[in-house]
């Protein structure tokens, strides 16, 4: 295997310059306030006017079936929009990546939701919330749930 110090040093210099450039740009972005970018940020409201609402998410099913790391079910959590603490809502009956919430178990209002995976060995994943940047729609959302 060829091992040349010159190109590595040059590459490292270029790499450090690149990171310095990115850090400077981000610092400038933060200091300027970047008003055009942040003037209208945060999770986007999704209005639902119905007796029930459906949630769906991407499954992270194991490639090999019936393993301890296979999905057993999901736990669904909610919190009023703008609050910090998650409250348990219900668990799904099986590994179906979706659930329906009816008005008899939750009052109408503005909510964020989150799900966590419960694996067959009893361990759980980190919660993924509707207000996370990686949710769909990208950037996050919350539900404004109204009576029909």
């Amino acid at each position: 295997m060829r091992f040349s110090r010159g190109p590595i040093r040059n590459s490292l210099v270029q790499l450090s310059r690149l990171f310095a450039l990115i850090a400077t740009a981000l610092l400038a972005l933060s200091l300027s306030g970047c008003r055009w970018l942040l003037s209208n940020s945060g999770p986007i409201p999704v209005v639902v006017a119905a007796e029930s609402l459906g949630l769906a998410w991407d499954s992270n099913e194991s490639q090999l079936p019936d393993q301890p790391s296979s999905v057993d079910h999901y736990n669904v959590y909610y919190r009023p929009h703008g609050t910090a603490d998650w409250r348990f809502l219900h668990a799904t009956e099986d590994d179906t990546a979706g659930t329906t919430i009816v008005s008899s178990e939750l009052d109408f209002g503005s909510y964020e939701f989150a799900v966590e995976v419960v694996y067959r060995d009893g361990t759980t994943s980190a919660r993924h919330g509707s207000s996370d940047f990686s949710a769909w729609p990208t950037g996050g959302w919350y539900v404004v749930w109204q009576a029909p």
Partner: protein
Amino acid sequence: MVRLRVVLVSVVLTLLIFAPVFGQELEAPVEEDAADRPTVGFIFNTSNLLLDIDAYQGGFGAKFRYPESALRALVTLGYASTNSNLEVGAGVTYERPFFTGRVVPYWGLLAAAVVQGERVEVDEDNYTQTRVITGSAGAVLGAEVFIFDFLSVFGEYQLAFDVAHTAISQSVDGTVTDSSSTNYAFGAGLGNNASIGLVVYLRPLGILEAESAEE
């Protein structure tokens, strides 16, 4: 699907075991005058070491390897009539290797943009229309490992800045409400959609051959 995976794994294992035996027959001769031309390869994602092949970041990926750099291109395109879900995206990653050989560590720059649209309609007075424009820029640090001269796997870390502009137009009984939001995320993590990339080059690169000659 399981059968297909078993067949694929069998083929790859067979190649891994017997390639040294009949390697000369498998590999085409490297062209002498091809040094300056890019070697083109197709990129796939594999979610695990069983080489369960998937589309590269959900789209079509190609790699153009030059003598001292490489360029990865990604194009995504999709449409579903059930919810009028449309996705169009393009991305490019420029790579600079620290050194070349069987293992090629590299750093690079990436830029990508994706436009997504979706319309869920109950009737013409009740619908939700969503449009999302996402842009990404950042740097990558990774390594490409050549299994053969025409086949490599790679994994990489990513330091990226993502901006997403989301606009939702909702109509409830004919009353339309529009809302929009712009959010950004910045951070380091696994790039390449947190999976292993697999590159099949259309022309042998001669890297392993050169390495054997040096030894």
